[in-house]
């Protein structure tokens, strides 16, 4: 028995160390092709890291495949993991001297990586891109201290999805555009088991069958707070901030509004896990969600459309974010050239990226892209979409996983119904602790 043991173990060991099937190459970052001299780009395989999942991942895979198939000078190996896991891998590889050649990220994350000194701004500069060819907010988002660190890929933001059939049933013809309309419509659309709506007497709030308004109550809940603050003309967050002082009234009013929707007007379910799923199931008449949900609505059986995010306060503003492509500092000039080639191609061909509901930041591609149903509301918001800053501590401050000041604040408001002034004070303290640390 011992002998069989030993043989099996030895076989297993040798098999494992020397095998690894496909995918086991490009460890140390040396080009697999010839490294011949000359001005022309020699054949190179580059590594591209992204953080997409689901339908987005499919589209990006398709784009990479198309690029690889269309020419042989540059071959791209695309790895996609969840964003934070991908970044960990990126940094670990960077430390080990085998950095990926192209890394996707969001604009609010770029500050952190610039501060770590891992991004190459010259490589971006040498692309000689035309600022006029890109959506302005996205373009600005790639800048840190007036130096550009990446190429904008797309823009995402919130808007309002609404169920036209349910609207018709409730006798509402148009989606709400301001606070008064929002509350009135949402109440008419919130029905209890007896068919009474939330504005009628005798409404049974413990037996609600259909809600009028839904939204995520995690970090996206805070994104709405951010939008609502901007709607009051107020944005205390900057790229270079080292401390923040939150206007108590304006910030509290923002929190209060969302809390009221849940606890006062009872038109929003507390702790809603997946508004878009509720919307698809027909149990919520309106939801606030992003354009990335558009591609998943094709199977929906009722009539629906999108509308601009309602203007609750004085100005129009809505939260948005942008994804961008960066080039980490790389000792291999050949790979940098290859990365530049790929990024340029991706940007120019990002019309296909729009098929998953994205809005390409490249204006030419945007023009060429097929408009998905519901996209108009989003593109109409481009003029007043607001991004979170690319502060070097943005990732920590605006983190979507615990412990996170914005997550705690949003959940204290929407799940725990705490006093908005207290929430504001705690948020300010938590953020300043991070900015100071």
């Amino acid at each position, binding site marked *: 028995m011992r002998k069989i043991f030993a043989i099996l173990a030895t076989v297993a060991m040798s098999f494992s160390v020397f095998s690894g099937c496909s995918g086991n190459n490009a460890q140390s970052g040396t080009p697999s092709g010839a490294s011949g001299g000359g001005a022309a780009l020699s054949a190179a395989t580059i590594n591209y890291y992204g953080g997409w999942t689901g339908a987005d991942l499919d589209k990006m895979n398709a784009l990479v495949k198309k690029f690889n198939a269309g020419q042989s000078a540059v071959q791209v190996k695309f790895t996609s993991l969840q964003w934070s896991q991908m970044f960990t891998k990126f*940094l670990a590889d*960077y*430390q080990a001297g085998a950095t990926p050649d192209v890394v996707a990220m969001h604009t609010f994350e770029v500050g952190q990586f610039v501060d*770590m000194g891992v991004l190459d701004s010259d490589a971006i500069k040498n692309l000689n891109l035309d600022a006029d060819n890109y959506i302005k907010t996205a373009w600005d988002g790639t800048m840190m201290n007036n130096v550009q660190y990446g190429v904008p890929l797309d823009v995402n933001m919130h808007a309002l999805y609404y169920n036209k059939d349910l609207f018709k049933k409730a006798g509402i013809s148009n989606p709400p555009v301001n606070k008064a309309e929002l509350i009135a419509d949402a109440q008419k659309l919130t029905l209890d088991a007896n068919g009474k709506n939330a504005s009628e007497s005798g409404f049974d709030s413990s037996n609600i069958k259909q809600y009028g308004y839904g939204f995520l*109550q995690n970090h996206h809940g805070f994104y709405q707070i951010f939008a609502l603050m901007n709607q009051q003309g107020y944005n205390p967050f900057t790229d270079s901030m080292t401390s923040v002082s939150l206007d108590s009234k304006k910030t509290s009013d923002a929190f209060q509004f969302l809390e009221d929707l849940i606890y006062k007007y009872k038109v929003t379910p507390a*702790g809603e896990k997946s508004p878009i799923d509720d919307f698809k199931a027909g149990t919520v008449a309106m939801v606030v969600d992003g354009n990335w949900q558009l591609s998943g609505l094709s199977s929906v059986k009722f009539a629906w459309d999108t509308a601009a995010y309602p203007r609750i306060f004085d100005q129009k503003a809505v939260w948005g974010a942008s994804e961008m492509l960066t080039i980490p500092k790389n000792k291999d000039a050949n790979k940098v050239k290859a990365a530049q080639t790929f990024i340029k191609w991706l940007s120019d061909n990002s019309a296909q990226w729009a098929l998953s509901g994205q809005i390409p930041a490249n204006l030419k591609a945007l023009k060429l892209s097929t408009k998905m149903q519901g996209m108009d509301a989003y593109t109409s918001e481009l003029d007043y979409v607001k991004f979170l800053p690319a502060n070097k501590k943005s990732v920590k401050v605006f983190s979507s*996983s615990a412990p996170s000041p914005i997550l705690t604040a949003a959940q204290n408001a929407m799940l*725990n119904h705490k006093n908005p002034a207290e929430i504001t004070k705690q948020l300010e303290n938590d953020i300043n602790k991070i900015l100071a640390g």
Partner: protein
Amino acid sequence: MPNTQTNGGTAALGLKRPKGTKPLRGSQGKIAVLFLLPYLAVFTVFRLGPSIAGIFISFCKWDLAGSLSFIGLDNFKRMLTDSNFHISIINTLVFFVLTLPPLIIFSLLLAAFFNMKMRGRNVGRTVAIIPYVLIPAVVGIIWNWMYDNNFGILNYYLKKMGGPSVQWLTNEHMALTSVAIVIVWSFLGYNTVLFLAGLQGISKELYEAARIDGATRFQTFIKITLPLLKPTTSMVVTLTMVNTVQLFDQIFVMTNGGPGTSTLTMVQYLYTSAFQNYEMGYGSAIEVAVLIILIIMIFIQNKLLKVDEEV
């Protein structure tokens, strides 16, 4: 095979030399090296070395991309005033207190049950251990689905029975308990099997003798079974303790530390600090804290269960 051990099953799991035997004279160092070397080589390279390096990092500041800079005890000083860290300690201990009693008591009872003669008990044993063998991410996804506020099956049955619908994973007072329930469900079978092994190591003659003496089932359990089971119990408690305090995968998949910070355990906070905030040094310091807490807990547990261990 003649069995001259007089202390039943204890020797099997304890480390004490059985009575009446002499220690082997002379060092067996040379042959020991041959036996030990293969494992120790792999162990040192792939576990011990990196662990020591990991502890060293706790005295440094490092963002993974750049180089390490030695900062002495600064990370530990920071832990003293970091409220998130304090919350994580409390969460870890609460989670432990929520999971340990059911995981010991219920599994012991279940093991005693499976120890009885009945048809189909093999099936029962196999079924009990199925949750343990499942991939944690799978467990997380399935329970996440069952815990869904609106469409989850648990709330459906609760409402049907006239109860309120519970916000299992979205209410910060409930979330940790909800995760604890999942962990108890997952590990119950594993502990049961370990207890079963211990129970079956107890000589049947002892039970016969007790029966002849007229002892009740209960008395037998308390006076014979439990004491003889001490080494097994001690091992199960230690393993459960270590597993619970170090639990990561399921929480990561189900709640990721939220809502708020209600499921932010120390290991969860370690991961966030190291791999989302890129504060490798601070994350390592948190790990040292976990290590210290575990050592204290094991020390206390040994004192309480008074198992003779030749350390």
